């Protein structure tokens, strides 16, 4: 997944202002909301007046409208929590009576089947598992939400039970809110259960472990002494890992922690063999192999714990008043297997007693890195063209023949291989404190081949870092650009500069005083191209909590479900149950395809506007009728139709149809925007700003539904 536009901070989104280069309009969303409210309000008044005049005649129509308007503020604002609670509780009872829990059974059944055969061979099982549970949840919950909420009010009106409700001091607004809240609470409960189940299902479904068996390992020796073992792990969950084990980098299974104010070093965690040998959490570490520790030097302490697999280290610890010496075996390795299928394992020494040859069986820890929530830190992108001249991304145009590769060029810009062309990202805010171990860079490059060559061979690229002020740069590093994969590159603290000196990234002058540096990427293979966009290269600033991200992802689903509930309740204020249900389904289908349909209707209504669209967003072939006409006459999408009456008729029908579609679309929520689920399954941290943005959009929509629904209910004869 690629994040095309970095999410703007929520205040900027709401109130406008700020940088406009990222496609944001100057006015904030709040202003747009007020404008829309104003326009919709006037429109609603006009329609309301027309209807009431049609039903009651001009003078009485006016009177009715004024009366409704006069009562509206009190009804809309003077709502009582207790009444709403009563109605909420009733709605929940009703939902359970409608057996919403069947959704859970369905969900569990799906998980059971999925557990057997969910993408066993996939390269990205984490993505597939998460995608599966999230999609299953969404598509089970959407119909459930619609079913429960679309039938409730019509049923009450049909059974006349509404008589005893509306003859109490209940505002129509409360009837709406009570239902929306009640059904939303039920959905929330179901979602919560599905969420917890999903979490466990994904974690357990992907959990596996391998072993490194002594006989599979090749020993590497230096002057007869084993220094390294290398080999493949056992097969498990349809894959193996390659592993390389340094012979003497094993540690006891403990975690150390420096106490504040030089209070010494304490053992904060023990596991497995360390616990078995008698260490306890909270023990104060005093000496290692008889050598007393220097206060505050945690690093040194950790280094002196290191040794060969299976050997023991004597730890002098203070527990309460007594001081004891415990022999702890070194069983875990500070390295990991090579990553495969998106994860790696920590190496543990299995047998404490190493044989003469030094070969041991190793157990491996749990898969790590399957579930991440990457927090990307984006930079600014500019380009240098093939002659070495600077180009700004905004004004970047292709003049060279052959660089226009069609569908996607306006989002990505392409640089040609083996020329001076380069893509240059500038990052800021880099400090040694934030990046003590160097900088992790994720590079996601599109490759465009002008000749095929070996199709599965990667196209070589190079990158280096550069200080934008002094021009000091690191040596170029070659990497292999592969389409659709994220290359993880590490810029370590110690890098070789162009003077062949190994210098510190920060102190060695590659990063400016105020924490900026540039990353230059270019394509090496002649005749091939790299495609880049601003969000393609980012610093992986840190990994946020996966669990929190999971919760955020489900909150995203929750927002959608509540929206749909509100929509269905709204439709049920003036439509019968089945019709309200159908329309709600239609609305979400349209809402999920809003972007496409808007572009489609634009292309029919205003064909000139196609030229302004990005190439990959253009839609050819006209509206549904024209397309159908093309199908039966076997014409392709772009050929001109013969002039004539028939063509005009078809085009006109499409035109009026798309006019209506366009108007309807502008009223619907854009479900395409709710991409939390994508972020979660592709392992990106869901930005809080985005969640807030959706939350406010959601509130605005609820507000509209609330107000319009109120007026509809208010002007409806319950006994009519």
């Amino acid at each position, binding site marked *: 997944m690629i994040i095309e536009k970095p999410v703007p901070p929520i205040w900027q989104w709401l109130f406008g202002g700020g940088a406009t280069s990222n496609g944001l309009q100057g006015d904030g969303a709040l202003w747009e909301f007020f404008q829309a409210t104003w326009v919709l309000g006037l429109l609603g008044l006009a329609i309301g007046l027309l209807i009431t005049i*049609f*039903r*009651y005649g001009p003078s*009485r129509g006016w009177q*009715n409208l004024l*009366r409704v308007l006069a*009562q509206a503020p*009190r*009804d809309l604002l*003077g709502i*009582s929590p*207790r*009444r709403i*609670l*009563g*109605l909420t*509780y*009733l709605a929940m*009872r*009703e939902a359970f*009576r409608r057996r919403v829990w069947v959704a859970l059974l369905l969900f569990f059944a799906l998980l059971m089947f999925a557990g057997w055969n969910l993408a066993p061979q996939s390269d990205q099982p984490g993505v597939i598992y998460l995608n599966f549970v999230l999609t299953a949840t969404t598509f089970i919950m959407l119909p459930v939400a619609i079913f429960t909420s679309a039938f409730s009010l019509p049923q009450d009106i049909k*059974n*006349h*039970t*509404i*008589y*005893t*409700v*509306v*003859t*109490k*001091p*209940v*505002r*129509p607004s409360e009837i709406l809110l009570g239902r929306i809240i009640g059904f939303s609470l039920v959905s929330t409960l179901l979602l919560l259960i599905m969420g917890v189940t999903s979490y466990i299902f994904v974690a357990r479904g992907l959990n596996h472990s391998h072993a490194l068996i002594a006989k599979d390992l090749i020993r590497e020796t230096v002057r007869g002494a084993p220094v390294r073992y290398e080999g493949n792990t056992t097969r498990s969950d349809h894959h193996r890992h390659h592993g390389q084990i340094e012979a003497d980098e094993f540690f006891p299974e403990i975690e150390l922690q420096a106490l504040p104010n030089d209070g010494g070093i304490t053992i904060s965690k023990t596991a497995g063999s360390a616990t078995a040998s008698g260490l306890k959490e909270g023990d104060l570490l005093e000496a290692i192999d008889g050598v007393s520790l220097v206060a505050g030097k945690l690093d040194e302490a950790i280094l002196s714990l290191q040794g060969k697999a299976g050997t023991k280290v004597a730890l002098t610890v203070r527990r309460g008043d007594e001081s004891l010496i415990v022999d702890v075996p070194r069983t875990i390795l500070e390295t990991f297997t090579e990553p495969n299928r998106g994860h790696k394992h920590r190496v543990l020494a299995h047998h404490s007693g190493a044989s003469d040859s030094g070969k041991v069986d190793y157990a491996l820890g749990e898969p790590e890195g399957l579930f991440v929530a990457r927090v990307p830190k984006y930079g600014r992108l500019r380009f240098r063209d093939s002659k070495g001249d600077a180009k700004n991304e905004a004004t970047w145009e292709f003049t060279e023949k052959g660089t226009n590769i069609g569908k996607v060029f306006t989002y990505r810009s392409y640089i040609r291989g083996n020329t001076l062309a380069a893509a240059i990202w500038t990052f800021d805010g880099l400090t040694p404190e934030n990046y003590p171990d160097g900088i992790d860079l994720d590079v996601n490059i599109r490759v465009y081949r002008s000749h095929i060559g070996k199709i599965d061979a990667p196209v070589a690229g190079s990158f280096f870092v550069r200080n934008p002020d002094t021009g000091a740069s690191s040596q170029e590093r070659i990497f292999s650009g592969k389409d659709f994969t994220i290359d993880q590159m590490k810029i370590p603290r110690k890098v070789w500069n162009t003077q062949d000196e190994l210098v510190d990234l920060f102190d060695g002058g590659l990063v400016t005083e105020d924490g900026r540096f540039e990353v230059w990427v270019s394509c090496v293979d002649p005749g091939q191209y790299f495609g880049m966009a601003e969000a393609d290269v980012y610093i992986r600033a840190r990994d946020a909590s996966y669990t929190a991200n999971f919760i955020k992802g489900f909150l995203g689903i929750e927002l959608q479900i509540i929206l749909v509930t509100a929509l269905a309740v709204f439709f049920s204020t003036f439509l019968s149950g089945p019709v309200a249900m159908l329309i709600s389904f239609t609305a979400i289908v349209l809402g999920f395809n809003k972007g496409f349909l808007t572009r489609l209707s634009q292309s029919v209504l205003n064909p000139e506007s196609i030229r302004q669209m990005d190439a990959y967003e253009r839609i050819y072939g006209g509206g549904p009728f024209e397309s159908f006409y093309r199908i039966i006459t076997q014409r392709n999408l772009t050929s001109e139709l013969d002039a004539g009456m028939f063509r005009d008729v078809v085009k006109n029908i499409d035109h009026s149809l798309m006019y209506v579609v366009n108007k309807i679309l502008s009223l619907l929520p854009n479900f395409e925007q709710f991409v939390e689920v994508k972020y979660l399954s592709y392992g990106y941290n869901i930005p809080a700003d985005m969640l807030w943005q959706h939350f406010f959009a959601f509130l605005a929509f609820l507000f509209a539904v609330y107000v319009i629904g109120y007026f509809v209910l208010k002007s409806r*004869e*319950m*006994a*009519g």
Partner: protein
Amino acid sequence: MSEQTQNEPAASAPRPVIETRNLSKVFRDFWGRQKVRALKALDLQVREGEIFGLLGPNGSGKSTTIKILLGLLFPTSGEALVFGREATDVAKNRRIGYLPEESYLYRFLNANETLDFYGRLFNMPAKERRERSRQLIEMVGLASAARRPLKEYSKGMARRIGLAQALINDPDLILLDEPTSGLDPIGTRQMKDLILKLKEDGKTVVLCSHLLADVQDVCDRIAILYQGELKELGRVESLLKQQDITQIQSTKLSESALEEICQVIREKGAEVLATDSPKTTLEDLFLTIVKESQSRPGKRVYADKDER
């Protein structure tokens, strides 16, 4: 919040609780075509503290009137005021209790839950709700069935819980649409007693019923509707009084004494019509009006015979 606003003109003592002016209702279909004229220019006033009966054959507009007064239907023309407010204003509902023609209640709730739910709609605190529900369930005689869902209730039981629901807020105006339908004789008796008791407490009751005896027993004033038109309106006693007939009622009159009295009447040139015990005569009145209206459609001149 604006409870006080309608207390403005307390000029003439019992002020009207309900007032309709020229009230009409036309039912239309979806396309706006007229289906039924259910009410034609109805003028009614119901005063505080009285029991008002709406009578009329099936389909004459009784329920329609009540629904308009509750805001369940909107008038086509004319006005309907309750406590001086527009009938569509929900704030008036705080002082109203309504028992619909049939018990339109949530069948999956039990009696306690039902009353609790409606109590919440009146914004009553939990303690008050519990207390009030207990009292009312006791009063309508459902204590033993209070925990059973309403879908298991018999018609009469449903009627009773419907009544309890209508009284949950201790209303000042109670609208009862056929309160005694489906009730057993004891229930009917209790209902009538209850209505009289409500009047005693100063409440206003509007009811419609086909059981004329019941109406005659409890109502102070009645209106008779026929095909949406008001045909008769007045105090029950004066409506039923027959000017040229004198009825003598006495206790423990012996056969011979009766014969003597009859003799005296005949001597005075009058005629003795009957000497048996009195019987329901509202029935007769009702039937006369219906028959008369069938033969002579249009506005029937009636004198509001209740001017004291």
